[in-house]
């Protein structure tokens, strides 16, 4: 089972890296933000897997906080863009 978890974490990390490519490539800020969102979801999955694999149940709490705050970045991003336009 632990081997499956380790390989799963590796695959999710690979998926995160693919998202990273989109963050680096863009082209627009919206694309970057979207990819950052995907990185967040992959990160939540990785933390859950690591929590079981490394016997660190507290990592579930870390994943929970990341999940609860996952929309903050997008809201801050679109909020500030409109604020800037308003000025």
């Amino acid at each position, binding site marked *: 089972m632990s081997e499956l978890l380790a390989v799963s974490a590796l695959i999710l990390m690979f*998926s995160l890296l693919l998202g990273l490519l989109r963050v680096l490539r863009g082209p627009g800020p919206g694309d970057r933000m979207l990819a950052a969102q995907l990185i967040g979801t992959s990160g939540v999955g990785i933390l859950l897997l690591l929590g079981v694999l490394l016997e660190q149940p507290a990592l579930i709490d870390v994943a929970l906080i990341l999940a609860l705050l996952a929309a903050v970045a997008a809201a801050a991003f679109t909020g500030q863009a409109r604020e800037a336009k308003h000025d």
Partner: protein
Amino acid sequence: MIDAVSAGLIVLGLGFYLAGSIGLLRLPDLYSRLHALTKADNLGLGLLTAGLALHSQELFTIAKLLLIWLAVLAAGAASAHLIARHARRQETGR
């Protein structure tokens, strides 16, 4: 038996994750990429948490796993909406 089901769920979840990432890379524009993220990714996490929940003995942990999935689901929907609206406003110059 439970191990096999849980492993199956996790592997299936990983498939959706990968599909989402590849979609994010390959699809041509922002709006279609939104699709890739919100559909596949959330299903991926859902299957993953289901697979891990089968292993957990504690009810509190299972509840937290469920909450994580719901929170990501809601956040994914909300931020996809915000990003799409932002992009449309930029295009139409409003």
